[in-house]
């Protein structure tokens, strides 16, 4: 039987070294809520498991250039228990709060939710809408990337061999801006998103939308940042007409599949509905901010 090695490095450099030395056969462990299931089902058989939870940088939450730097191994529950973050980025908090059960929340990490590269990951559209970036460590040192650059397809990322995710950066919250995330699942809990929609928008003094970012999950091989949705909102007063245009643009952007969780027809229709509903919530929040 193949022996699986395990390492729990305490520094980014040590982790990179371990990953590089192991070639492709190493896998990063943070919350483990995806990796352990995949190992059990035989989907992944790593030679080496690198537990990154003992690296301080990956566990930290700190303010940085008016925004926030959040370690990649921070669990959803930790994000949502933070005294300030959920109030500043309620949409992102909503998304993290939807990832699995209470039990999963205490383990599943923000970095893992992104790097597992599921098209249905709840946090990804919310982070895209928020304009979050991430920091990646690797043999060539650290680099910054936008969230939308990470996932390239189901289960696939742009991370090179030896690279791993260290932290995220959420920008400063602009005045008159707000965000929201909604997803659809068949039950009230415990399902994978059939459709997800994240909206982050800014309105000026007379209620006109000056900027917007809209991202959709589970309607394409990767989460989508939809420019047409943003354009449907920017420059409008976010009236019913604009919201209708947003919904139409969201549905138009969908490239979904039929599967055990939903149909093409359903995902396409509901993507528009959720984008519209999320925008309405984001608007409420923008007005009171």
């Amino acid at each position, binding site marked *: 039987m193949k*022996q699986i090695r395990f390492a*729990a490095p305490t520094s980014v450099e040590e982790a990179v070294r371990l990953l590089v030395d192991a070639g492709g056969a190493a896998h990063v462990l943070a919350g483990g809520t995806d990796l*352990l299931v995949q190992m059990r089902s035989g989907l992944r058989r790593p030679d080496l498991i690198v*537990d990154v939870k003992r690296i301080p940088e990956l566990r930290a939450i700190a303010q940085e250039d008016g925004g926030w730097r959040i370690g990649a191994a921070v669990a959803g529950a930790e994000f949502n228990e933070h005294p300030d973050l959920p109030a500043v980025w309620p949409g992102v908090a909503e998304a993290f709060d939807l990832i699995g*059960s209470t039990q*999963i929340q205490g383990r599943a990490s923000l970095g893992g939710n992104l790097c597992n590269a599921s098209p249905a990951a709840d946090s990804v559209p919310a982070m895209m809408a928020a304009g979050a970036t991430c920091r990646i460590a690797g043999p060539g040192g650290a680099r910054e990337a936008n969230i939308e650059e990470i996932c390239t397809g189901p289960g696939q990322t742009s991370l090179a061999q030896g690279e791993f995710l260290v932290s995220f950066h959420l920008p400063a919250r602009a005045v008159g801006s707000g965000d929201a995330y909604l997803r659809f699942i068949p039950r009230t809990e415990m399902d994978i998103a059939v459709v997800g929609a994240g909206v982050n928008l800014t309105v000026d003094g007379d209620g006109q939308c000056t900027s917007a970012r809209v991202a959709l999950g589970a309607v394409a091989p990767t989460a989508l940042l939809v420019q047409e949705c943003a354009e449907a909102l920017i420059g409008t007063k976010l009236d019913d007409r604009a919201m209708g245009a947003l919904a139409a643009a969201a549905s138009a952007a969908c490239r979904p599949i039929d599967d055990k969780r939903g149909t093409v027809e359903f995902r396409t229709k509901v993507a528009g509905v959720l984008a519209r509903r999320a925008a309405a919530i984001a608007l409420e929040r923008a007005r009171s901010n």
Partner: protein
Amino acid sequence: MAKHHITTTINGEPTEFLCESQQTLLDVLRDELQLTGSKEGCASGDCGACSVMLNGRLVCSCLVLGIEAEGASVETIEGVADGDRLHPLQQKFLEEAALQCGICTPGFIVAAKALLERNSNPTETEVRYWLAGNLCRCTGYDKIVRAVLDTAAEMRGA
């Protein structure tokens, strides 16, 4: 196969065990330490029957590696009662018949205890969502949710 030597604390007791890299905390509890109160219903984090506390957080022990317990503090169903004194939740589950077959009961009690420790006055909705990761196929949840709400009320009163 070289096993890892793990030093941890389980239900307040310093504990050591040997495990392989891929063994989950649930495997270790059940097979190495004979703490069979935590149940395996799915091994994928979907049923909550293996719920334990890890460093004060509610987790599915089937989604934690045994190795990750190194230096940690683990609380299982076996540690909920104080000797022969039942925890109020255990007493209320009995009084209100909040169990039928009983296979999910340890997970529910560990999860509900975690809820009451952070929220002494939860609403019915809060209880239902907190416990959504614990499946019960016998009761329809009605008596379980009532038992948790009534325990909370009793503990607030006490």
